[in-house]
């Protein structure tokens, strides 16, 4: 831990030369649920015209802190101050009235209403008791263009892509003049170009003199944006530092509290030359997405591209989850009937990017979740064998290091990282030879991330093939032996060896000519 000496002492150098009292300050803020303290002794401040990032692993208390600041949850210790005056927010509406707003991580919009109707939901403008749609549409259009959203005020929110919906959510928070805006992982569902647009929005707020609190798992964003950084760990505040003095590696180490080993496992010896899976002329959604590719035993094949480039659709089509056709050879045998269960029997599984919506039954305990896809393994002669099932769960919990207070908890009560490990255990039940993982580490903390990378590494070392679809470039580049880049529903580039760099992936994913790493397969 040489780092601790080279870093400034928290608090001292953090005081910026501004005379005015901070826009929002917490004094010994804490929160306990019964005997369980989730946050204690947090004393941080954010000033007008500053971006203050909050980082920490999942479970560090970031979300709780945000909810305390925005009135969604009441503190059990300490208090808040705004411009030097003590304040208390009875609820989120009181916080908003005082000028503090939280932009939620989850999308909370009414899908059947239009963009403008969503923006003004609960605060509709009226003219003589009649809703004034024209004025609301006008103001909506203004705020949408200000934050770089490409949707129209009359668009139905349910028909918008996820990224646009996220921007609508942000627009809703910014509709009125704010003193403090809190972002909770606003870029979790955005692709790189959209992230850039969003960061510009955040910087714009800073220039207008708004105090911004910014939570993110993406340390590159934090490095690019933040003026100061506060680190939380295990419900305690580790300290606040000026961003200029911290590298991403410093941040990661402060979050974890120990030196990180290499996050990505070393690349393995060259994979076998005979492909385990060969897909030819796969056509999904009546031609919207197409592709041919092969993957070899002992290989991690990365799939890159912007969100909306058809990556997920290509593989959902392969699995028979979308209308699709094509020719497939797995382990030397042609696979004719395509369905999730037929593929699983043949030795191929797919782990969805949508953990909560398509991966796990959140209202059910761990055991039925684990065995849902492979019930035959825990089946006795006539019935499901509860004993085999709980043995399987114990093994999965140990193998995948799923950390739970009790195995009788519902899956929805686990943290994101543990949910992801449970999902991994679920698809691995049948010991497949090809594993497709869509966004292996979305929304999970760095400790769990490195564990999942280790699992992937072990998998391919054992001679299996792994296809990783990822929006996180460092992850894609760090894990993959070979990368296919998709754009507008087509595979436009194949990168291998030294060509696998972030720059090449971005270039192929965004630029007209795809010659950068084009190679014949």
């Amino acid at each position, binding site marked *: 831990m040489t780092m601790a000496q080279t870093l400034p002492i928290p608090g001292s150098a953090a005081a910026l030369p501004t005379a005015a009292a901070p826009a929002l300050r917490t004094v010994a803020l804490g929160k306990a649920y019964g005997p369980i303290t989730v946050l204690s002794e947090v004393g941080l401040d954010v000033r007008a015209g500053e971006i203050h990032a909050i980082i920490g692993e999942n479970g560090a208390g970031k979300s709780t802190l945000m909810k305390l600041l925005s009135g969604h949850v009441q503190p059990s210790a300490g208090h808040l101050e705004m411009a030097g005056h003590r304040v208390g927010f009875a609820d989120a509406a009181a916080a908003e009235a005082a000028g503090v707003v939280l932009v939620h991580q989850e999308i909370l919009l009414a899908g059947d209403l239009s963009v403008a109707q969503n923006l003004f939901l609960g605060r509709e403008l009226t003219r003589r008791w009649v809703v004034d749609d024209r004025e609301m549409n006008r103001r909506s259009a203004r705020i949408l263009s200000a934050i770089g959203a490409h949707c129209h005020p009359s668009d139905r929110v349910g028909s918008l892509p996820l990224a646009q919906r996220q921007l609508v959510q942000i627009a809703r928070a910014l509709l009125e003049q704010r003193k403090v805006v809190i972002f909770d992982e606003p870029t979790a569902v955005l692709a790189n170009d959209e992230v850039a647009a969003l960061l510009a929005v955040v910087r714009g707020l800073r220039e207008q003199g708004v105090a911004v609190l910014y939570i993110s798992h993406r340390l590159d964003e934090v490095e690019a944006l933040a003026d100061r950084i506060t680190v939380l760990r295990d419900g305690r505040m580790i300290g606040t530092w000026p961003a200029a003095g911290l590298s991403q590696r410093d941040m990661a180490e402060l979050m974890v509290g120990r030196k990180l080993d290499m996050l990505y496992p070393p690349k393995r010896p060259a994979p076998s030359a005979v492909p385990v899976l060969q897909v030819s002329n796969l056509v999904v959604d009546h031609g919207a997405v197409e592709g041919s590719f092969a993957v070899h035993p002992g290989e991690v094949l990365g799939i890159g591209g912007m969100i909306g480039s058809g990556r997920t659709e290509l593989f959902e089509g392969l699995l028979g*989850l979308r209308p699709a056709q094509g020719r497939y050879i797995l382990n030397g045998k042609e696979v004719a009937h395509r369905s999730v269960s037929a593929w699983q029997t043949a030795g191929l599984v797919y782990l969805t990017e949508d953990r909560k919506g*398509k991966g796990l039954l959140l209202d*059910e305990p761990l055991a039925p979740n684990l065995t849902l896809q492979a019930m035959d393994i825990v089946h006795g002669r006539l019935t499901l064998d509860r004993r085999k099932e709980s043995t399987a769960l114990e093994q999965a919990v140990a193998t995948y290091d799923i950390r739970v207070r009790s195995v009788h908890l519902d899956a929805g009560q686990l943290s994101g990282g543990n949910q992801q490990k449970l999902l991994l255990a679920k698809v691995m039940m049948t010991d497949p030879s090809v594993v497709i993982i869509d966004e292996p580490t979305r929304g999970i903390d760095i400790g769990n991330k490195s564990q999942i990378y280790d699992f992937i590494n072990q998998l391919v070392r054992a001679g299996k093939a792994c296809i990783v679809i990822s929006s996180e470039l460092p992850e894609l580049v760090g894990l993959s032996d070979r990368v296919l880049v998709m754009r507008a529903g087509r595979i436009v580039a194949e990168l291998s060896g030294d060509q696998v760099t972030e720059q090449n992936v971005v270039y192929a994913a965004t630029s007209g000519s795809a010659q950068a790493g084009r190679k014949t397969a």
Partner: protein
Amino acid sequence: MTTSVLTEAAAAPRRFRWADMGPFLALAIVILAGVMLNSSFLSGTNIANVVTRSAFIAIIAVGATFVISSGGLDLSVGSMMAFVTGIMILTMNRLEPSMGANAILVGAGVGLVVGALCGLLNGLIVTVGKIEPFIATLGTMGIFRALITWMSDGGSIPIDRALREPYRPVYFGNVLGIPFPVILTLIVVLIGAFILYRTKYGRRCMAAGSNAEVARFSGVSVARVRTTAFVIQGICVAVAAICYIPRLGAATPTTGQLWELQVITAVVIGGTALRGGKARVWGTVAGALILEVIANLMVLSNMVSEYLVAAVQGVIIILAMLAHRFIK
């Protein structure tokens, strides 16, 4: 170190949840109220009477537990019951001259097949036709009701006199003092519980109702699971019909009228989530008993007019839902 902690956690017994006991506590309270209000409530004949009368709703509600927990809803059970009853009586009457009492067996078999087919029709409209279960079964509810009215020409379809005596024990008989309908209910519930809690199908039913997308991504055919649930519902309706015929000896256009409401009430106050996912077969039985005990109490005591039975049952379902929310 981590591993040992986890193994202990795995061995720990499942946490007791008061919410799971709700329906049974409610039943106990209702029975206690009955004992205090009227001394004849606890008499053997009255108890046997109450349990026997609840048998039809309980049997149909076991099927409804499948449909609802898999994410569906069946409003047609009451009129399906009348329709199946009508078909069975017509079959039995037609076969009686040639087969004698055996016509009852064949008629029962025909009833089961017709019930299963009615359920299959509902299931296919919902899964292949992709129509909301509420609308699809609202439609078939009207169809079945109209068919029985048409078959009976607006009157009644009585069973042949010669069959009354041999068929009688199926409703009025008993084994070791336990009324036959009660035994039948118990068998249906045991089979239902076995399928729901111990088989792959039961697990898939729960998964389809809990989150259909997760089920689909896990290789479960949600359409097949839901269709099967409707077929099970149809078979349960037929079983209830077999037991019901000897009671009144006829099918009429009002047979089973509004039973769908009692059935759904029994399922929901029994703790099965209306949005699907959580199935509580024994809770369903408790729910059916609660409804019947309350009706019985209102008849026995003179405090409230028995015309208000449906109103009280309506209050019960709302209270049960509120209790469920606040206990959680």
